[in-house]
């Protein structure tokens, strides 16, 4: 099993799904961080966020950060998932799992990874305001003509 996995998926992440930890890894601490869309974004009440990703570069950078975390914090495994497209309030848009021998290095690696990701990974979010409850979720990145229709 790979020590690093990175995936970018359409829509929200199923945060209840299980990430298998390689039994051959001697991990005494497995830390999972879930990024969840808040209702308040920059003092506005929103219905969700639309994520745009530059997929090839984002995957490459997230993988490089995960590789760096393995070395810097001497953790055993890093698994990263990020959403693209629309994620509604209360849904998960980002999941990071770090497995380490002890909790301290795993917790530190989680914090470090998220800070670096927010600084550099080519991922953008736009607030979404639904017109009504019948609005259908877009299966992938929101189109530009649809962005124009979003109300600030």
């Amino acid at each position, binding site marked *: 099993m790979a020590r690093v996995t990175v995936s970018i998926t359409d829509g929200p992440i199923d945060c209840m799904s299980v990430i298998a930890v390689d039994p051959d890894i001697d991990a005494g601490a497995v830390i999972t961080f879930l990024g969840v869309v808040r209702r308040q974004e920059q003092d506005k009440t929103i219905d969700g966020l639309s994520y745009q990703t*530059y997929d090839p570069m984002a995957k490459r950078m997230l993988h490089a950060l995960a590789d760096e975390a393995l070395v810097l914090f001497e953790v055993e495994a890093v698994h990263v998932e990020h959403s693209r497209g629309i994620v509604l309030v209360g849904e998960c848009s980002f999941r990071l799992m770090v497995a380490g021998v002890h909790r301290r290095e795993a917790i530190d690696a989680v914090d470090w990874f998220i800070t670096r990701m927010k600084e550099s990974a080519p*991922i953008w979010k736009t607030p979404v305001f639904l017109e009504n409850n019948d609005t259908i979720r877009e299966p992938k990145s929101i189109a530009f003509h649809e962005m*124009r229709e979003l109300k600030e």
Partner: protein
Amino acid sequence: MRINVLLFGPLAQRLERDSVSVQTPEERPTAAGVLTALEHAEPSLIPLLSACKLAVNHTFAHDQTPINEGDEVAVIGLVSGG
């Protein structure tokens, strides 16, 4: 050289498209030269470009990184993942 520059996030929203074609005076421009050409081609992006870097083939470029025919060139502005 004529170069197709990919746009994302606020830059794409500003122009309402996801790429722009720019012409550089040099046959083999640098990353800085491409950003200058972009400023000339799309002046409305200038306020946003000060916070941007050029990515070439999915890697951030330095100002003096040469751009070759066929390279994938993108402007990466302020990001907001997570």
